[in-house]
Every structure is written in structure tokens, then in C-alpha cells.
């Protein structure tokens, strides 16, 4: 077969292949399985707190205290939401949380990639020992390192600033581990070819390795986003000024020592979980893959 004939042949063969694999994904939906009889009630059980939160956020304060609980509010109290926005710097908290989360996610993607690549591909003295040590930090509960970290952050002069929430979280052992495992699975010939083609180590990482690591980077991004967005304990001990609070911390201001404005708390809660819910729907496959491949719980 001549060269051009071979090219034509394989070009002709391509659409056929696509047709075969391009099955309409919608045909897989709504196929009944007996498992659904188990899964639907379980899913409903999981949803109950969420539903209750939404219902409570639309009740009056008195209704929230009623026993037995009132499932259908007499009138829908939309003003709970506006009251939250008026009584607390909610927009500020939202912005703070967004800034912290975005910077931490970006930092993790960058620094975990660099560290993960070094552990995966660059041979240096003590590499495996250092990697084990990094991994071992995953086993230390946050409560143990909380105070030393606090002291370091205070010496850096970051207490009661967003920097306190960002700097200690810019890289994590989890992301390093996940990325290293993925980088090792890429064919090394690609990197060797790029090095012969003239790319530096960093060039190889940014031009070859990272563009091929989309799924795992998405996983690291999603998981880091969730952890950072929902973090409560660390902001609680480093942030005092209401203007520097994140959402999770701000929510507690609705809980007083003598009285809790449950309806307002729940309205604020609903607003704070919307971005997380949205992210989860968009990126749930990366989230699930991250949990599944790392064997870690969120």
C-alpha cells in the first residue's frame, strides 16, 4: 500500500469508529434497577437535613421553636434572607471566603504540581524518605499542629488577616500525593522526547505534563475548594475582626449565648452552601474520583 493510500484508508476508517463509540448517553438514563428501591430512600434520608435547613430558613423565629416541628410554614418568610444581608456583612464574608478559596486552590495546583513532579520524576538524595514524611503528615490531626501553626502565623504578623487563612494552606500533602501518583503513570518517553526537543524541566512540567493532567488537577482543585470553603476551626482561632471573617465563621455570629436566631442562621447557611452545591454538581465526577483514587475521606 502506498503512503497516501494508507492515509486515506485510515482517514476513512475514523468516522466509523466514532459512530461506534458515540452512543447516545441519554439512552442509559432512567433504566430501572432493583437497587433504586434501596437508593431512593437512602438518598432522601441524606437530603432531610438539607430540606429542613431550607424550610427553617423560610419560617418565623417562633415557628422554628415549635414542637413538634412545623414542616410547612404558615407563610414564606423571604425577608429572612434580606434581614441576614442587612444585619451582617454577609457580602464581605462571601468575598473573603472566595478570595481565600481561590488563592488556596491556585496555590495548591501550582505548589503541589511542583512538589509532586519532583517526587515523581527527579532523582535526588533522600527523595523517598522525604516523600514518606510528607505523606505521614496526613496522619497528624489538625488539632495537634494547630497551636504551632498559630505561633508561626503570629510571628509572620498574619493574625486577623486573610493571609492567616491562605499562607498555611498553599500546599497540602494530599494534593502532592495525588499528583505524584498521576505523574508517575504518564509515559516517561513523552518527557524524554520533550527534553530532547529542548524543553527545560519546568518546560516539561508546564507544557507536557500538566496539560495531560487535567482530570487530576480538577480533582485537587475541587477537593481543595471544598476543604477551604468549609473550614471553620482555623478561621475561628485566627480571625477576630468581623470584616475579615469567612462565611463559616460569620454564620456563628447568629448564635448568641442566650438566644439563637435559627431562622436567620439557616437562611445564611443556605446562601453559603449554594456555591458548594453548584460546584458539586458541575464537578462531582472529579470529586468522586479523587476520593476513590486516594482512599481518603473528605
Amino acid at each position, binding site marked *: 500500500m502506498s*503512503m497516501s493510500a494508507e492515509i486515506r484508508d485510515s482517514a476513512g476508517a475514523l468516522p466509523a469508529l466514532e459512530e461506534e463509540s458515540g452512543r447516545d448517553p441519554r439512552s442509559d438514563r432512567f433504566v430501572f434497577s432493583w437497587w433504586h428501591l434501596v437508593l431512593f430512600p437512602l438518598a432522601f434520608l441524606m437530603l432531610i437535613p438539607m430540606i429542613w435547613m431550607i424550610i427553617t430558613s423560610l419560617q418565623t423565629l417562633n415557628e422554628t421553636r415549635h414542637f413538634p416541628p412545623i414542616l410547612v410554614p404558615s407563610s414564606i418568610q423571604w425577608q429572612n434572607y434580606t434581614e441576614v444581608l442587612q444585619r451582617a456583612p454577609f457580602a464581605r464574608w462571601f468575598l473573603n471566603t472566595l478570595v481565600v478559596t481561590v488563592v488556596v486552590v491556585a496555590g495548591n495546583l501550582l505548589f503541589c504540581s511542583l512538589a509532586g513532579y519532583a517526587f515523581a520524576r527527579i532523582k535526588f538524595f533522600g527523595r523517598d524518605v522525604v516523600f514518606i514524611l510528607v505523606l505521614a503528615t496526613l496522619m497528624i490531626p489538625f488539632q495537634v499542629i494547630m497551636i504551632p501553626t498559630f505561633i508561626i502565623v503570629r510571628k509572620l504578623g498574619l493574625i486577623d488577616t486573610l493571609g492567616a487563612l491562605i499562607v498555611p494552606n498553599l500546599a497540602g500533602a494530599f494534593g502532592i500525593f495525588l499528583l505524584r501518583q498521576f505523574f508517575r503513570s504518564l509515559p516517561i518517553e513523552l518527557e524524554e522526547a520533550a527534553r530532547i526537543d529542548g524543553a527545560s524541566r519546568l518546560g516539561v512540567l508546564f507544557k507536557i505534563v500538566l496539560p495531560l493532567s487535567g482530570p487530576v488537577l480538577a480533582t485537587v482543585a475541587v477537593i481543595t475548594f471544598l476543604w477551604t470553603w468549609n473550614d471553620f476551626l482555623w478561621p475561628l482561632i485566627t480571625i477576630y475582626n468581623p470584616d475579615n471573617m469567612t462565611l463559616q465563621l460569620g454564620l456563628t455570629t447568629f448564635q448568641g449565648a442566650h438566644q439563637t436566631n435559627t431562622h436567620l442562621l439557616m437562611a445564611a447557611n443556605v446562601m453559603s452552601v449554594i456555591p458548594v452545591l453548584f460546584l458539586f454538581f458541575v464537578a462531582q465526577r472529579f470529586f468522586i474520583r479523587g476520593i476513590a483514587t486516594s482512599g481518603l475521606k473528605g
Partner: protein
Amino acid sequence: MPGLTFDRVSKEFPGGTVAVRDLSLAIADGEFMIFVGPSGCGKTTALRMVAGLEKITSGTISIGDRVINDDSPRDRDIAMVFQNYALYPHMTVYKNLAFGLKERKMPKDEIAIRVNGVSSMLGIDDLLTRRPAQLSGGQRQRVAMGRALVREPAAFLLDEPLSNLDAKLRVQVRGDLKRLHQRLGITTVYVTHDQVEAMTMGDRVAVLKDGLLQQVDSPRNMYDRPANLFVAGFIGSPPMNLLRAEARGGVASAGDLSLPIADLPDGDVVLGLRPEHLRPATDGQPSMEFQVEVVEPLGDGVIVHGTVSGTLVTAPSGDDEVLPRLAGERAEITTKFEPTLRPSPGERMRLAIAAHHVHVFDGRTGDVIVAAGA
């Protein structure tokens, strides 16, 4: 364009495995050099040391007069084609070809000229917008070649570039590669375990075994005058028959064959008989009885497997070759006849070989004692 020189190059991996021992070899400017040997012989390691992907333990490698031991891969001015092609999956064919030029900061319009030139030379112009996953094996191979060619390197390194192609395509690409080399005249080092590729493509062939260079010569000379038993058994298809024999007073005896050979010292020897040199015996010729077992008609010839009395030497052979086996007191050998001569299985015949076609090797060292006359 400069040549490539190995000067006493060795490679020892951590853990003590020695992949290449004391390799000295000069590859001339524009030469097509083949490294061949069974897997684990060090041929790929030797190539990777040239590319800068493995550090050299001792010795020097130079391109022209420039020692490149400590140069990074990018500064060596070499290009390499990998066994699995290593095309960047996230880039189009055009970007794959342009990557090396872009990394060297070549202006965009110049890159376009070079990429288009190489792609039309290789007949891949209509693939430039595709991604590697959308290409067939042969097309990928071509793109990999193109990526190396577009840089116009001082030396071209190919690591078993045909091993992922099917048999028919392999023959075609083999020819294409050879034509390309004749046209461009770039110094080329080609690694393969396939002795057919070694015989057909190279100006010279270097046979390696356990990291040691066995012989470097033109394919023809390598075939006609193997330096030792390993090369004799490795080069040639079907391989040379190697029979144990005893030499006394200028006569070598193996089984029922007694062959007078000039300049033969006494002692244990191994006779090397190429399949195509074995012929049905005429009266009075020194011969051996051959029992036909399997007949393989090829069209242009017939390969006949059978047994003779005697003891075979199991030649160290390539990884995908079947080792000759002992059949009781008899040794299994192979002959190649003209297509008109077609014995039937079970038939007994007498085979002869002209004395000047016989290779004689030392029974202990394996080195050649008496080389066959050409």
C-alpha cells in the same frame, strides 16, 4: 555533518548491573549504523547515553570533536524516535512537529516553512490538524520521524521504530527510512533486535551481547565472516547450523560427516553451516545423512527442517528466536533449497557442503578459527 564517537564508554546502573562495557566505536559522518542484539544487550542504553537520557559511567561520547558527556539533552543537537513514538497527545500533528523549534525560539514563519517542508516530504500534510489519537500506527510513526527531521539535527537516534508496526507496513517503512537516509545523509544510529532490519538497513552493523561489542562490520561481511559463535548464530535467517565437531589432522568430524578443511588445528571445534550452503550430495562428496521432518515452501525457496547425527551447539540467539533443540542422539538442522527441490517429510537424503563455505569456531572460546571463503 560530524560523526559520532564512543570512546571506552561504560554504563553501570545503581545496584551494579553493567549495561554497556568499554564500548569503543566510531560512526562516520552520514553513516547509518545499526545496534543489534538480544534484549538486555545494552543497545538501547548505548543510544540513551548519546541522547543524554542516561549518564555515562566512564568513557566519552563525542559528536565531531565535541565531547557531549555533560551536555543536557537539548544542547546535544540530536533527535530521537522512540519505540512508542512518544507523540504529545494533547497537541496536533503540526504542534508536535513545531514543538522542538518553538522551544529553540525559532521565528513563527520559519517554523511554518520547516514543518510544511518536512510534512510534505513525509506525506503527512493532510494530517497536520489531527491529534495523535486520530492517527494509524504508520501515520504516527511518520509523525515521529517528522518531529525528529524538522530539527535538522547532527545525529538521528532511532529506538526500535518499527516494532509497533504490522509486518507488511514494517517492510514498507523500512524502505522509506533507507531512502530518507540516502537523501538526507544524516548520521543515524538505529537500535533493533530484528536481524532482518539490521541486515537490510545499515551501512554497518554493531552486534552487542551482555553490554559487550561482539563485532562491527558491513552486513555482508558480518554474514560472511562472523567473528564468533554468537554473531554466527544471531545474524542470518534461518540461522546458521552450529555442529560440535572434533578436528584431527586437518579433518573435522561431526556425526557421520568427515570434512577435510585447510589450516585446521586439532581440538574441539564448532562447524558453522549456513542453511543455503547445504546441498544434496553427489557421489564421493563428504556428506551426512539428513532425515527430513518439516518442509516449508516459501515460493522463492524451500526451508527444510530435519535431523542429522551429531551434537548441536545451542547458539545464544535473539529473544524471539526458537533455540535449536536436541533430538535425542540427533541434531536438528535447517537447510534452504531451490524451489524445484522439494523433499517430502520422512525422506532420507545425504547433504554435502563445500569446504570453503564452512565456518570453524573454537569449541571453548567460540571465536572463529577458520573463516569461510567468500
